[in-house]
């Protein structure tokens, strides 16, 4: 028996207090294999030990919710007996070390979380954040991550229909790669990980186990330092072809009645999948590791239990269904092995070459993992920047051009043209609009999906920032005509052991909770990624929200493209000209100052309901939500998408200074183009919603108040040039 020294314990990321708990649970000193298992199960990544206390405060219920957090992914009812299953997950640390494989396996992992529940994946979304463009690593990371996301998703044949890409110096040493998958299942055919039936076979399917990714979950739970490149061997390698076969084979097996429970082998591989299944069914499990399909010779139990080789699933079968399951896996040329059985011992017993090499109690390990109430301090209030505190732009149109050509406002076409966004033949709104829209195959219904977060708001005011991230997804989903149903969250933060970071986390959760409650928009799944720090410098707090909404009639949607010349532009929502923390202030005046905008959740809901009713009624020609860059940027997006000019006219009664009115980032607003504005204004007044005509479509040029005229062609060229030029180096 190997000696477990304090150094070995520390190398496993287990602190003294936690090791004391290990000894108490085991009743003896663990061997190295057992210690390794504790290490991954209790890693931040698998145990949520720092975040659990706060995650519990998020609203997770509603009539639309079939299954909330705790499963592999959230499940919501979308009518007609169908369910949407979705989740977002981070693959930040591996993507920084090896961008192509890190991003690719991020996509693969989230796909498995969704199809393991019985859903066919129908849409991918990814939210990417990189360091400043001038940082020497950024171009390489963008290139690798985008190629990895595309390489995996394109091959598997699931369209990537939405996402975001943002640059900020805080991500120089810790990029964020958050991938989301939405799947479609029959509401009465949802599969879970709950094991049952003493003696039922435990079956392994998919790829063979290799030495890749050992301790990936532990790596993802630590800060980086200058030697992080040495961690490259812990990054897994993806095989999207096998994933595609695995999807088809599992969905085929799910058509039979052979499965008791099923779980993908994600972070912490065979360890966490077998623990989770046995634990949720209050069972024991005995595994014979000699039976595990192995890619390499001479693998030890430690390596097999901790490998994060990709494209593997663990299934509990009903008795006597082995041959049926084996024949389906054979058809798809996938490995199939019975590697163990369920027991009533409530322990995990691991056998290798006839010896018991590990014996651990399941419940205490899975459920009594440490839970921390980490000390936190609230983020201090920032002084705000008032509309009157900024200089009036000398030429607002030129300012808009500068803004639309800047790294964070420029077109992402270069990115999403590398993703197959049309495969499966149901994409009815492609990337580039407010939300991606995919039809529910064979029906008139469709799902709208989006991801959003404004980290600079979260830094200035975590509570407002958290609420804003939720509200922006609500708005993006509404702007295409969908009813927002539920969200998944991907909480990316720095080191939670620092009270100010923990304070950001707590604040964002508070804002998210308020927004979810006010908008009847619960959280059904999520993921937490902490320790996004390098040499003690943390990222901007980044709670990325993935939203899903339902369109009942796919003919009744809106896009950002104007219908025709001579339409009125109607601004919905109140504009006070909030310029604090705005893109304008940052890019044009070089000041990242002020407070985040207030999110009036009652107005958010009222305005959203109104806009949606107008789209559903078929009255609206086009619709766009207002976010970064405010009214002016929204107008520019629409003009570019439409290849049509527009003149913006500031109503005489508006007292806000023109620059703040054009570029302010007040929340809860939409821009609509419509032929008959009068009836829209009447309907708005009846609904108690602010609405005003602010312009007219037509011609080839864009004109702003206080500004010159620019051709839409020139504006588009500037908007689309930055990213390809930057990447060409």
């Amino acid at each position, binding site marked *: 028996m190997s000696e477990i020294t304090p150094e070995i314990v520390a190398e496993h990321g287990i602190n003294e207090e936690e090791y004391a708990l290990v000894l108490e649970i085991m009743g003896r000193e663990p061997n190295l294999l057992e210690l390794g298992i504790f290490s991954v199960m209790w890693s931040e990544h698998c145990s949520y030990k720092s975040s659990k206390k706060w995650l519990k405060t998020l609203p997770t219920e509603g009539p639309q919710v079939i299954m909330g957090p705790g499963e592999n992914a959230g499940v919501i009812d979308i009518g007609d007996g169908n369910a949407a299953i979705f989740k977002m997950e981070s693959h930040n640390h591996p993507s920084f070390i090896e961008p192509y494989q890190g991003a690719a396996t991020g996509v693969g992992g989230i796909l498995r979380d969704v199809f393991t529940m019985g859903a066919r994946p129908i849409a991918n979304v990814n939210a990417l954040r990189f360091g400043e463009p001038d940082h020497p690593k950024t171009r390489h990371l963008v290139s690798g991550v985008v*190629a990895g996301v*595309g*390489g995996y998703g*394109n*091959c*598997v*044949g699931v369209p990537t229909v939405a996402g975001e890409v943002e640059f900020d110096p805080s991500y120089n040493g810790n990029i964020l790669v958050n991938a989301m998958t939405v799947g479609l299942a029959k509401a009465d055919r949802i599969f879970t990980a709950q094991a049952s039936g003493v003696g039922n076979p435990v079956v392994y399917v998919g790829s063979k186990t290799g030495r890749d990714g050992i301790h990936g979950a532990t790596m993802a739970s630590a800060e980086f330092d200058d030697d992080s490149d040495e961690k490259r061997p812990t990054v897994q390698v993806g*095989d*999207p*072809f*096998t994933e*595609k*076969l695995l999807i088809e084979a599992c969905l085929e097996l799910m058509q039979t009645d052979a499965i008791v429970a099923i779980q993908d082998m994600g972070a912490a591989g065979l360890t966490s999948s077998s623990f989770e299944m046995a634990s949720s069914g209050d069972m024991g499990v005995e595994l014979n590791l000699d039976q595990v399909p192995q890619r390499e010779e001479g693998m030890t139990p430690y390596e097999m239990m901790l490998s994060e080789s990709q494209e593997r699933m663990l299934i509990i079968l009903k008795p006597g269904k082995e041959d049926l399951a084996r024949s389906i896996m054979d*058809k*798809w*040329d996938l490995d199939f092995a019975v590697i163990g059985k369920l027991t009533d011992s409530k322990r995990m017993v691991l056998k290798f070459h006839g010896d018991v090499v590990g014996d651990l109690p399941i419940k205490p390990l899975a459920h009594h993992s440490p839970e921390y109430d980490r000390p936190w301090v609230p983020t201090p209030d920032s002084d705000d920047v008032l509309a009157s505190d900024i200089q009036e732009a000398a030429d607002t149109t030129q300012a808009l051009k500068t803004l639309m050509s800047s790294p964070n406002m420029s077109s992402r076409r270069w990115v*999403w*043209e*590398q*993703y*197959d*966004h*049309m*495969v*499966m*033949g*149901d*994409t*009815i709104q*492609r990337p580039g609009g407010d939300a991606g829209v995919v*039809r529910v195959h064979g029906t008139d219904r469709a799902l709208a999906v989006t991801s959003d977060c404004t980290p600079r708001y979260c830094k200035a005011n975590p509570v407002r920032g958290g609420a804003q991230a939720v509200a922006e997804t609500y708005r993006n989903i509404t702007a295409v005509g969908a009813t927002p149903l539920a969200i998944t969250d991907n909480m990316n933060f720095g080191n939670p052991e620092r009270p100010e970071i923990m304070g950001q986390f707590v604040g964002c959760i508070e804002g998210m909770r308020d927004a979810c409650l006010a908008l009847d928009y619960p959280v059904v799944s999520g993921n937490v990624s902490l320790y996004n720090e390098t040499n003690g410098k943390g990222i901007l707090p980044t709670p990325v929200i993935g939203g899903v909404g339902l369109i009942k009639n*796919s*003919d009744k949607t809106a896009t950002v493209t104007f219908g025709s010349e001579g339409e009125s532009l109607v601004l919905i929502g109140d504009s006070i000209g909030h310029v604090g923390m705005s893109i304008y202030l940052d890019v044009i005046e070089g000041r990242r100052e002020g407070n985040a905008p207030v999110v009036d959740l009652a107005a958010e809901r009222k305005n959203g309901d109104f806009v949606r009713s107008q789209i559903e009624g078929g009255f609206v020609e086009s619709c766009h939500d207002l976010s970064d860059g405010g009214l002016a940027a929204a107008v520019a997006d629409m003009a570019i998408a439409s290849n049509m000019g527009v003149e913006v006219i500031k109503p005489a009664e508006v007292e806000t200074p023109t620059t703040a009115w054009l570029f302010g980032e007040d929340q809860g607003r939409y821009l609509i183009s419509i032929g008959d504005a009068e009836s829209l204004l009447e309907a708005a007044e009846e609904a108690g919603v602010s609405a005003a005509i602010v312009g007219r479509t037509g011609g080839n040029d864009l004109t702003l108040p206080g500004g010159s005229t620019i051709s839409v062609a020139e504006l588009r060229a500037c908007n689309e040039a930055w990213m390809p030029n930057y990447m060409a180096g």
Partner: protein
Amino acid sequence: MKAAVIVFPGSNCDRDIQVALRQSMGSEPQMVWHKDADFDDVDLICLPGGFSYGDYLRCGAMSAKSPVMKEVVARANKGVPVLGICNGFQILTECGLVPGALMRNSNLKFVCRDLHLKVERNDTVFTKQYQAGQNIRIPVAHHDGNYFVDAEGLKALEDNGQVAFRYSAEDGSVNDHSNPNGSLNNIAGVYNAKGNVLGMMPHPERLCEDVLGGTDGRPMFDSLVAALS
């Protein structure tokens, strides 16, 4: 008309082409698993897009050696129309049913977007419902669509009228700017010498419904149904 869609491990546009065929045929095409070389007599065989066998070797190279492809080649040689789209085109070149090869896109990146195609001929079973010279909008989605054939082969293709489609601009002009992947002579699709086999990189099955953004792909399937029913 009876049609078969060959499904390889890693095919991912098989359902898309099934939907497009169903819409034009009014009946179900037969989905044929790659291990089933013994499939019914059909009037049309389709090889769908995707990443057969992962395309870890040259794209289409593994599939070209599969048992079902021996049968497809035999039937094509007897005159059965065969349509290969994207990965299907790559498989057709690998098994020699159409000339040439598809190399990595010249900019080395995957490309997914709508672009325009000039229809060269409308006297084949695939294109009767287009006009010769018509400019149509069809999406591409590929990493390896850079068509290459040696000088002699290229001359033969051009002389025999075996070019099916060329990448064009919105105004119909064919030039380097309208070439998304570096293909020789902007070639997007080619016929075999007899004209019963068509391989093309663009995806007509993706634009057969207004709600998907266009219907310029539909005449291909309508042409096939009209010619083969």
